[in-house]
């Protein structure tokens, strides 16, 4: 499974993870939780593997998440899609549990398993009965050490990925426009590469290339495991140590990642003053207007999250009222998003036109209106409403084991601290109206954008690209 915006969503949804413990040590914590601590036990093994366990005895079920710090951003030219391809192949058998055994064992015991790949990370997850946890540890530790990558299933799975690509992007105008936005905004940087892979690359990708990817990045010091549910950490930790503890850490990864994550690689090169029109099957035009965003974790990223919420979240939001819910609506749908990746970000507005509304008219009007968004849309009440919505979302996220596991996992990855929820909430809660207005002006008023639209009336197989001065490329 490929999930394009999951990181952003998870980060946004974890705003209120709330309450966590301060025992983020490198050894098992002996500290007892205080009333303000979430009961999570963190251990980092000698080989660098980080393990988080959040017990919850409500029901005899468990969610088991494993994150590898590798995503589309580490693919080099000609190997786009390798991370995602590897994700698929991880279900195809390993040394101890051969082809067909991984999912058979999980499903016959009542579990479900899947995975997703983003630009920044690959995450595997299982929701299982608690009686199956020990076996799950064995299954996971087997496949991260001894993946088979069988040639026969490798080629069969390539066809499956082509079908997934069609489903998500080629036959979906929304998916296609997103793909194009990422390509154009991050052109020339690792984020400009398609996570699911370009068709030609996917055709040529070899088993050796994927195996090389596996050996390079699927190492314990590049992974985090989060387990939430009906487990006793004191009983489970020795089992985890036994199964994962002997896997050697990588000797090359630190240097390789430093090179790949060099901030210079992520400096945006795109021309933020351009427009692209693509043919797609939608009979009514859709568009995205993309601005330079912010990488995850900075205060500005939090402010931009709040700004996106304030402008475009819900039927009462400014954008919805201005363009969708009025006497002469231009659009049938509009949304605003701030997608904060590890090293860069994009802030974008998306919409679909009403029938018989002209796309050029909408584009012109939006570009004119946008200068007034910051003074018209942002006030104290809307800011408070946004903070309330963020809180409500966080509660919702924390009600399930999978929500808990993914939350502590992503906080650990993004902030180096599974406990970051309280801090995040403090930051969101401290965002002021003037701060939001300043960022709004900087990003929407004083910056250029890339405008991308799709329509079934645009010429096929040609991407019309027009700069603001009218020059056709």
């Amino acid at each position, binding site marked *: 499974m490929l999930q394009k915006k999951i990181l952003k969503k998870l980060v946004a949804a974890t705003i209120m993870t709330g309450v966590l413990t301060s025992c983020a040590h490198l050894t098992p914590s002996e500290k007892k939780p205080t*009333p303000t601590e979430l009961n999570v036990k963190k251990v980092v093994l000698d080989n660098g593997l980080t393990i988080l366990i959040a017990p919850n005895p409500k029901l005899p079920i468990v969610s088991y998440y494993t994150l590898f710090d590798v995503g589309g951003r580490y693919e080099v030219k000609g190997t786009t899609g390798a991370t995602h391809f590897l994700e698929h192949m991880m279900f195809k058998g390993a040394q101890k549990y051969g082809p067909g055994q991984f999912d058979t064992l999980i499903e016959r015991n009542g579990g479900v398993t899947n995975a997703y790949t983003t630009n920044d990370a690959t995450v595997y997850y299982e929701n299982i009965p608690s009686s199956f946890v020990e076996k799950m540890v064995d299954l996971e530790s087997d496949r991260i050490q001894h993946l088979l990558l069988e040639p026969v299933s490798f080629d069969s799975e390539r066809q499956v990925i082509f079908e997934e690509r069609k489903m998500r992007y080629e036959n979906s105008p929304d998916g296609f426009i997103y793909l194009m936005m990422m390509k154009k905004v991050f052109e020339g940087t690792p984020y400009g590469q398609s996570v699911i892979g370009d068709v030609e690359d996917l055709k040529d990708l070899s088993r050796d290339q994927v195996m090389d990817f596996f050996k390079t990045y699927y190492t314990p010091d590049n992974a985090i495991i989060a387990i939430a549910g009906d487990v006793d950490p004191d009983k489970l930790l020795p089992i985890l140590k036994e199964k994962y503890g002997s896997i050697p850490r990588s000797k090359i990864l630190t240097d390789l990642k430093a090179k790949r994550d060099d901030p210079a690689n992520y400096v945006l090169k795109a021309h933020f003053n351009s427009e692209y029109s693509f043919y797609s099957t939608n009979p009514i035009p859709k568009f995205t207007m993309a601005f330079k965003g912010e990488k995850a974790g900075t205060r500005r990223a939090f402010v931009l999250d709040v700004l996106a919420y304030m402008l475009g979240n819900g039927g009462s939001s400014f954008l919805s009222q201005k363009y969708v819910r009025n006497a002469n609506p231009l659009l049938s749908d509009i949304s605003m998003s701030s997608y904060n990746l590890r090293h860069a970000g994009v802030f974008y507005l998306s919409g679909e036109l009403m029938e018989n509304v002209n796309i050029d008219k909408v584009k012109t009007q939006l570009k004119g209106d946008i200068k007034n968004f910051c003074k018209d849309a942002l006030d104290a009440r809307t800011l408070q409403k946004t903070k309330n919505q963020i809180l409500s979302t966080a509660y919702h996220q924390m009600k399930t084991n999978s929500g808990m596991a993914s939350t502590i996992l992503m906080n650990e990855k993004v902030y180096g601290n599974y406990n970051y929820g309280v801090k995040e909430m403090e930051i969101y809660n401290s965002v002021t109206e003037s701060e939001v207005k300043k960022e709004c002006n900087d990003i929407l008023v004083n910056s250029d954008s890339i405008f991308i639209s799709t329509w079934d009336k645009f010429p096929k197989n040609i991407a019309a690209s027009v700069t603001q001065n009218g020059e056709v490329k």
Partner: protein
Amino acid sequence: MKTSTYIIGLSALFYSLQSFAAPKIEDSIKRLNWNGIEVVYLEDNRFPTYDLLIYFADGALSDEKMQMGSTKHAFNLLDAGTAKLSQKEIMDQFEFLGTEFGVDVTHEFTTLSMAGLSKDLTTSMGQACSMLREANFPLPIIKQELEKEKTELQSLVSSPQALSDRVFREVSLGNTPYSYPVTGKLKNLDFYTPNLLRAKVDYFLDKVKKRIYITGPKSILNVEKVLTEKCQLQGHPSDFVRTITYKKIKRNHPQLVFVPVPDANQVQVQIGRFLNFDEIGDRRLDTLATEFLGGGFTSRLMREVRVKRGLTYSIGSYISSQKQYGRAGISTFTKNETINKLITVINESVEKIKKEGITQEDLERSRGSIVGAHPFKFESNRAFLSQLLYLDHIERPYAELFDFNNAVMKYSAEDVTRKIDEVFGAKSQIIFILGDKSIEKELRKLSSKMGKIKVLDYKNFI
């Protein structure tokens, strides 16, 4: 509401979560009576939140001809405005409190749902009552919303899976009272007037049997006063419950249906049929059979179609039912070039089950799967409440939920084989294909085995 207050509350919440140990889950269900209305309460003190469902024992079957879809629209447009509050004010108030308000209309029943922070329940419910009792469906707002809906329907052609689901549903339930979409179609949208929509809501509030499902801390039970006084909800033994009679559908040969759409490089495939009232009795066997056939990565169809042949990314099967009818289906997609191969593999797989049966190992895998997964049905309170609501609707005891594991273990491999043949046997299926026009020629090659191909225009279904 100040968010900072809730950081402290949240801290306490997680502390209490750590020491929470649930009693036997069915013991937490309590039945109350509020003004003649049955209330099902599930106590849960772990979070300062609530979930609330209001059930009405009628649905889209109450819609008159040319007003089809009016129930769905009457409830969906409750937030269009009242004499005192505009649409924006209504939306803003719910969004300010972080309250989720939703509506689900099926042919047989209707559900209103609300969720949010328990301290805001009476405020949110008060607003919901204003909407239920005072919504006046202002014409300009209704027109705007319906125009928006028309645009969305016109755009459906660019979402092949969604379009396929919509058209297949109507085609496979053809000639039954359940085939027309609960949302209505484009041609119905101009018939919804403020008076019609107001009358619809009044009918449901005052004539139809209601039940309330609620979960959260005990403090939320003070919503009774709002529901009985402001919403004026009351129950009577004579309240209406929708039941109908219809002529059974019997199909003796397969029907190949093709719906062309422009420029699709992937074909949507659905194979299935309507289930008569006397075919939907054993829902736990239905669950077991569909788990084996198309219920996960290890299902028979997933193995044959994706794992062995790489023909698709996803394939699944389902048998779903309400009180008086059901539907069954296999749903998947493939590239244009392999459409006939895909259909052949699916048919052969089902035929092979009929001929050879399923092994004890197959049975145990499928049984283990649904039994092991059973506790997940209780993880989310909303899902739990929905299951209780469903059991009440189909007039089955809650014991079916709690005895699920024992019941499933009693089924044999022969039971599963028989069920798959009865429901998915080739001769009674609608084989539905939605894709690029260019594949029609290839599809006609299937006609010798599956009968004459019927070509339909998708525009007649939106």
